[in-house]
């Protein structure tokens, strides 16, 4: 990776982290933040209230937005490699549709349990991908395209289920809650939520980083990859499973975050090149920092929270348009429709 790229990335991260720590609706100045961070050296914190707000509200939110950003960006890069499609997103196999359905189901019928919504979303998200896999395995064609079609079918199925639930939901509370959940937000971030989400996302991300070089070979045509010695069917299963667990855990915790999984791998590819050994860590870092910055904007700029998908869409969609026009970065120079 270019040295300038590394420096730029680190600067971006440091700036975002600094802004995130100091910004928020509850005013804590830079000095206050410093005193809180160094409280263990004996410096007196500003006040008990400030300390509680910083440690219980702001910090878990910062950590969660960064880690979730890492996770779904990596998942996006992995899916793009597996399906040889620069426009693949992490929800291509139906994990998001399944999670939304699971959450809606829990909001309608199982709201008494505290972790019901999160757990149900996770279970149905992984169930959706499992179903897509089972459906694809029935076909004699073992290519990746069949898996994508199965994913579309399963997505449509769970979307229909979600629509039915939304139709019969009480419009004043249940429906509003379901829509709210789907839109995605980090404001429910707390240490409890971090405990249930982060281990899975971090472990999955680390695993994908370790096995990242192999993805280079996975992008080749099936026959070429087999000739080179990779059992693509088994490895595809592995990569899909780990990525799905990451995305399901993220969506279950904070709802759907649009565009990040699709855009971040492209920017990272521009900075770090196509070799996945470098691309995966770069994507993680970039995605985490980006989402951290976006969430800071979402929670600080206005008195009311801006749904984060709106911010990521406003920035993501035009950027994707720019990428499509400048096809060099999609790498589809000579071959048309390959």
């Amino acid at each position: 990776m270019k040295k300038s790229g590394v420096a730029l990335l680190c600067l971006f991260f440091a700036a975002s982290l600094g802004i995130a720590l100091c910004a928020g609706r509850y005013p804590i100045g830079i000095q206050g933040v410093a005193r809180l961070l160094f409280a263990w050296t004996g410096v007196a914190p500003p006040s008990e209230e400030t300390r509680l707000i910083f440690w219980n509200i702001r910090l878990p939110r910062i950590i969660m937005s960064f880690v979730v950003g890492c996770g779904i960006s990596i998942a996006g890069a992995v899916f793009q490699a597996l399906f040889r499609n620069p426009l693949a997103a992490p929800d291509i196999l139906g994990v998001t549709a399944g999670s939304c359905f699971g959450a809606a189901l829990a909001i309608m019928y199982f709201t008494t349990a505290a972790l019901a919504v999160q757990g149900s979303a996770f279970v149905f998200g992984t169930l959706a991908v499992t179903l897509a896999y089972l459906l694809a395995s029935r076909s004699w064609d073992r290519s990746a395209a069949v898996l994508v079609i199965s994913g579309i079918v399963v997505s449509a199925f769970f979307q229909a289920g979600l629509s039915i639930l939304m139709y019969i939901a009480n419009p004043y509370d249940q429906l509003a809650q379901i829509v709210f959940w789907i839109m995605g937000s980090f404001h429910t971030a707390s240490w409890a939520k971090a405990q249930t989400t982060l281990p899975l996302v971090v472990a999955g991300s680390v695993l994908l980083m370790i096995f990242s070089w192999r993805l280079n070979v996975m992008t080749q045509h099936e026959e070429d990859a087999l000739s080179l010695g990779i059992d693509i069917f088994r490895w595809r299963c592995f990569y899909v499973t780990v990525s799905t667990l990451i995305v399901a855990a993220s969506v279950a915790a904070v709802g759907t975050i649009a565009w990040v999984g699709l855009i971040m791998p492209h920017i990272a590819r521009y900075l770090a090149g196509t070799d996945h050994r470098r691309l995966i860590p770069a994507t993680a870092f970039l995605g985490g920092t980006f989402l951290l910055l976006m969430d800071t904007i979402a929670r600080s700029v206005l008195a009311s929270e801006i749904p984060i998908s709106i911010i990521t869409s406003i920035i993501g969609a035009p950027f994707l348009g720019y990428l499509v026009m400048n096809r060099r970065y999609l790498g589809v120079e000579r071959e048309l429709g390959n």
Partner: protein
Amino acid sequence: MSLAIETLSAGYGATPVLHDITLKVEEGGICALMGRNGSGKTTLLRCINAILKPKHGGVKAFGQEVSRLKRVEIARLISLVPQSSSTAFPFTCREMILMGAAARVRAWSAPSRKEVATALEVLHEVGIEGLANRPFNQLSGGERQLVMLARALFQNTPIMLLDEPNAHLDFSNQHRMMEIMRAVVKRRGATALISLHDPNLTLHYCDHVAMLKKGRLVAHGPTGAVMEEKTLREVLGENIRTETTLGGHTVVTPRGPSVAVHKLKILSRR
């Protein structure tokens, strides 16, 4: 005996393509695979590599049944240069070639610095070191073929399969590729099985030849013995004849006088 194909029958779905092929390829040396389009050359190569499962019979590489080996083990024995290639992402040629190390590298690591240096040497061997940092997708068809060849060389296997590697190459590169193959085979003691269309290349560079017609093995053996006009006409088509040059080489040409000779004859008649 590096490669032993025994009573192999294979096809796609209900369509049979190969019928009862028995072929033994000696260790060291280049064996050409010839036949018209659709005679089953690519299918045969796929069966050898265990990408296609045969309906009957089997393939043994160095005495081991290929279908029983794990994918990684096969890749350490056999490499394949495909007919055409492209990639969805802008990998550089260097990165493409490094993929050849997939069977050697542990799942959780990447090629070492030594491997990277070796990859550059292979690029040099094939003569395309200038392409190292260029994106693969921006190359011409012929340049891509050379990169694929380099990748298979980097894979460093005792058996190499090449599926019509000359398809996009210019005249001099066609010969250069065959020269490289010959040099590699001699140096490493490898075995190469190349499917070719040009009988002259076969005559010039290959030790053995196997001829397929409609999925059946019609002839195989040393090149000089097998490549005579009768067999060639039966396998490759009626419009062929062989000639012997003044230097004693056999050359295969189409039947009937060439345009240039025809014009000369007309001129000389005046």
